[in-house]
């Protein structure tokens, strides 16, 4: 990239969704953002705008952020209609001002999904994902310490595949990008990451049934196989995992029909 382009300052107009609180009416408000360094991150630009708003005595724009290095999944903006902005495999925090043209009007919206209600401005409550995780996104076997982990051999292919799925940072961009606000890519990543590994086999059927059930109960939509989710995913998680989730769910549904249930399920030995 030329140094000339990187040194020239950029001015844009922000069109931001402002909403005072949950269930309050919201609206778009325009803010000018002048003399921005092209090498500023998108969130740094919002910090600068917020500083100006604070100095003027106005309410700063609320937006979610934490690590600012693309690994925590906290940032959650829809920039010009695309979750996490224009670049592939990049979170909002790693999007830079040089990606925008001088004078451009940049629309910033919160993730839109019924299970992700807006808390304030651009901040949404994504605890629905935690509820899905709590339904089955864990193993009950003792994983032990590092040497114990090595006692179970795992093929390189399976390990790599599981790690591809485990890259999910739970940001919710898949839900935001899907026209049905479907959480299938998130659930697929969580189900696959444990389901591919030997340690995850004990609860494999129970996990996929419980997580899909919770996903449906929380009001996420269905998958139309348009793959907008994987295109928006900052970790580029493949929609192949959705196919795997579907297969796992179908198989688990059939197996659950023939599974013998214990006489009582509560209490341990003695």
């Amino acid at each position, binding site marked *: 990239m030329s140094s000339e382009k990187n040194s020239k300052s950029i001015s844009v107009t922000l069109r931001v969704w402002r909403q005072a609180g949950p269930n309050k009416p919201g609206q778009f408000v325009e803010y000018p953002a002048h003399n921005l360094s092209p090498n500023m991150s998108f969130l740094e630009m919002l910090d600068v705008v917020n500083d100006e708003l604070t100095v003027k005595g106005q309410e700063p724009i609320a937006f979610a952020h934490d690590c600012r290095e693309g690994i925590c999944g906290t940032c959650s903006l829809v920039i010009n209609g695309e979750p996490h902005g224009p670049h592939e495999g990049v979170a909002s925090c790693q999007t830079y001002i040089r990606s925008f043209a001088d004078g451009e009007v940049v629309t910033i919206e919160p993730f*839109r999904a019924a299970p992700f209600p807006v808390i304030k401005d651009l901040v949404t409550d994504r605890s629905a994902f935690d509820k899905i995780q709590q339904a089955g996104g864990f193993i009950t076997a003792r994983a032990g310490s590092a040497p114990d982990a090595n006692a179970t051999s795992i093929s390189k292919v399976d390990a790599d595949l599981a790690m591809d799925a485990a890259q999910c940072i739970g940001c919710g961009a898949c839900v935001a990008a899907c026209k049905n606000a479907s959480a299938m890519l998130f659930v697929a990543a969580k189900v696959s990451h444990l389901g591919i590994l030997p340690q995850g086999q004990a609860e494999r059927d129970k996990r996929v049934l419980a997580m899909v059930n919770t996903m449906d109960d929380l009001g996420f939509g269905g998958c139309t196989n348009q793959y907008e989710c994987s295109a928006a995913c900052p970790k580029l998680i493949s929609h*192949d995992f959705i196919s795997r989730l579907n297969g796992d*769910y179908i198989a688990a549904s059939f197996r659950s029909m023939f599974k013998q249930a214990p006489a009582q399920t509560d209490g341990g030995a003695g």
Partner: protein
Amino acid sequence: MNPLGHLFCSTIGRKVIMAVTGIVLIGFVIGHLVGNLQVFEEPDRINGYAQFLHTLGPVLWVMRITLLVCAGLHIWAATVLTIEDRKARGAVDYRTKTWIQATLSSRYMRWTGYVVLAFVIYHLAQFTLGSVQSASYKENLPEYTMNADYHVMGIPVVHAGTHVHDVRSMVILGFSQPIVAFFYIFAVGLLSLHLLHGAQSLFQTLGLRNSSWGKALRAIVTLACLAYFLGNLAIPGAVLTGHLKLNPASASSTP
């Protein structure tokens, strides 16, 4: 939950219903086209074929009811899923709506579905029930006399000399009205577009697609949809361009 509960009550289950009924309906439309292409051979073929289907009696009804149930479930699942999907977005939608990579055919599944449904209703009214364009309906046309036996897998099923409905003339007279022929071509075009997404999507829904063969699947489905469209275009196209003509016997006896 029992498996039937999983099938009807979960989003994935309803998608499985879409996929499985889709397979049945795709099988039907392909078989239907292959059967109909016999119109390009001598009149004995298509008329004998139609007569053979009618002689199946209860088997024909089992097939018809299966297709109706599949179409019904396909539409039911689509409707329920669409209602849920719209609710899932929440009260406020995006101001800026963009597509990142969704294919054209996937974006218009609902609209192509509506047109195909309207077409199927007209198609049944025209050729199966005779409630529209009844002047050219098979029961109102002079009967056709078979010149030779019609064979299915080497077995003669309709014998020479049998009086049968003149399906061939019904098709040619039906498509002689350009507006009907063009609607037919338009609808099968949209059906092909519907299948372009649907036939790939069902593999994903059933957990069979992945990127190791996803491109091959796309290529196969695209070619199949193109072939399906051209096959369907051939019949009204040949009537409109005059390549498919009434046979002299029925032409002379038709007022």
